[in-house]
């Protein structure tokens, strides 16, 4: 019984939040890594692309809500998601046509592209704030919980409660579906194969008749879709505020680099590594140990490795260690 309590406490406060946050980071990191793999630059505008996608989705959600359309127990935002994706794809293609293509034709160096993406980031930053404002926006509706802590306690008779929010469930399930579809697309379809070929060796791909502009276009479309999904899931689970998306950029890049830039599998692993390291290293293990150890061994202190103030330091410490010993990331990506 005690061991069960320990397990439930751990699941409630570490595993579930870690899984949800990890999925959101993984989806974000996938977008960053695809751009890096195929277009060969670090896209600093990714966080704000997520914010833009989430914003369009929120606007459609509000429109649906005012028309009385709902999605039952699920959040209405899921219905609005395709429209959000469409809007973001339009924006991504527009920036590519007007900004990035110019530099691509000049064969600009990657570092120039990075600076350009920084500029795009500030533009999108302003655009989102201009349209929806800098404040918190709430757009989650439907049933809030799959299971509530109190209900769980009554059902099982355990001391510890287990709560799973609907948004957490949706996040993990959506992430699995999206990743499966993405890998199928990259490995099985003609377009996916040409994208990978272009990523592996640009010249060889051109020689074999692959249209580079088409590859670039598909990449932006996929990245815009990924960014919107990640942004909406994060906004549903936490709350939507343009500034938090800007701050998300750091953990997302940390995830992509730890996993290996350019490697989709690595991006997913990196997302979960960063999310879990933030939660576990700053977790106070007192409760779990008290349940699982015999009384004589139970600790008096909090058994907390690091205070929660340091949670951001944790992901960067991991990043530095990985870069020192395996510069290409855990799953062979490209050297940074």
């Amino acid at each position, binding site marked *: 019984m005690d061991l069960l309590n320990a397990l439930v406490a751990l699941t409630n406060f570490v595993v579930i*939040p870690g899984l949800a946050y990890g999925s959101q980071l993984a989806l974000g990191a996938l977008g960053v890594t695809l751009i890096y793999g195929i277009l060969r630059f670090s896209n600093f505008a990714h966080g704000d692309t997520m914010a833009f996608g989430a914003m369009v989705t929120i606007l459609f959600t509000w429109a649906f809500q005012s028309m009385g359309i709902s999605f039952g127990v699920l959040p209405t935002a899921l219905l609005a998601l395709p429209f959000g994706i469409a809007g973001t794809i339009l924006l991504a293609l527009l920036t590519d046509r007007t900004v990035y293509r110019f530099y691509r034709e000049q064969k600009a160096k990657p570092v120039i592209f990075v600076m350009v993406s920084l500029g795009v980031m500030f533009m999108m930053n302003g655009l989102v704030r201009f349209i929806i404002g800098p404040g918190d926006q709430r757009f989650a509706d439907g049933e809030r919980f799959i299971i509530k802590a109190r209900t769980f306690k009554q059902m099982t008779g355990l001391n510890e409660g287990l709560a799973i929010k609907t948004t957490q469930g949706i996040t993990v399930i959506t992430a699995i579906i999206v990743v499966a579809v993405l890998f199928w697309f990259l490995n099985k379809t003609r377009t996916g194969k040409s994208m990978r070929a272009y990523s592996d060796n640009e010249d060889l791909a051109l020689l074999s008749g692959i249209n580079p502009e088409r590859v670039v276009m598909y990449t932006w479309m996929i990245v815009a879709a990924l960014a919107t999904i990640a942004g909406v899931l994060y906004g549903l689970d936490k709350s939507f505020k343009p500034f938090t998306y800007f701050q998300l950029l750091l953990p997302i890049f940390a995830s992509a680099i730890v996993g290996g830039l350019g490697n989709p599998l690595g991006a997913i692993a990196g997302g979960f590594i960063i999310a879990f390291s933030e939660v576990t290293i700053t977790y106070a293990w*007192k409760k779990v140990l008290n349940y699982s150890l015999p009384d004589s061994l139970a600790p008096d202190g909090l058994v907390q490795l690091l205070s*929660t103030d340091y949670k951001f330091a944790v992901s960067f410490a991991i990043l530095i260690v990985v870069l020192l010993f395996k510069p290409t990331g855990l799953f062979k990506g490209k050297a940074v």
Partner: protein
Amino acid sequence: MKKLLMATAAAALTAGTAFAGGHAKEVKLGVLFGFTGPIESLAPAMGDGAELAMAEVTKSGKLLDSATVTPVRADTGCIDNGLAVANGEKLIAEGANGIIGGDCSGVTGAILQNVAIPNGMVMISPSATSPGLSTMEDNGLFFRTSPSDAREGQVMAEILKERGINSIALTYTNNDYGKGLADAIKTSFEGVGGEVTIVTAHEDGKGDYSAEVGALASAGGDILVVAGYLDQGGLGIIQGALDSGAFDTFGLPGGMIGDTLPANVGPDLDGSFGQIAGSDSKGAEIFAEMAKEAGFDGTSAYAPESYDAAALFMLAMQASNSTNPADYVSKILDVANAPGEPINPGELGKALEILAAGGEIDYQGATGVELIGPGESAGSYREIEVKGGKNETLRFR
């Protein structure tokens, strides 16, 4: 450029003083609050409170030679020292005769050190409550109409004890205000035999607080005390703790008391309790009535304190017959404390008359003002419990 700025500021200041000597027709009071940032939902009512007092005095026409009192609003951002200091200097340059503010403790200390002391300007803050400000070297220029958090710590410990709570988990917003208040609560609560299981900081403006909530939940405790801001991390922590079932009841110090918190969290917040500076003096009711007429909420946190801060400035000016900070600063404690005729909100005209005739007043105002020690309020608190999605006042202590 800097020299030019300094010169302009100095010129503006002397110009202001020169006017004062010749009995100014206009008195300017700076209203320096965080109209943007973590307490942006409280600041508008605070500004209205201060301006209500100014309008009342202007209407009475009895200040000095029937001077008009003009408010000049400026923003501190609540946590933005650079912005706050720049705007403080702007107020001086515009010829303010006194500064009502700042609001949050960190910026208030910064304005005091970088603007008020170098320029000899008097500041009365309605809401900066950090204990650190009691001991900060201020050349006697700083006053506040709210009590120090050291007092709030004692009050909170009393409330917790009376409710039979023996252990608390404590989290604070990572700045001067949060840290000072958390220390005060911890010391006082342990002083009355309570146990504090964990003290941990949280950062404002983040999306994800699961690590913080996890650590707090593991440490356990009867309730979770959140010494934060209701529009910021404090809300995120409470939401996260409720969602994961970590805590059901929350202790809410002053920064967490406001109408938006129960509205945002919903019915789960019912039963949580806290306290905020406020008094049951007759003045509070009168002020709420006056505020209603003026079209804002007079029970909003720190709005009455703002009214009192503005009133103290104008009464001290009248008592010293000057708008020069160096002259009226010594009169602030005189008009605030006994002996003298007690003055409620809405009676500022009467007070000005008494002072003009050379009499004494004991300004009570909207919060039962009583300044002690280094010029801060002795401190009475409103005990609050959230019932049915509303902050309800239980009693005063």
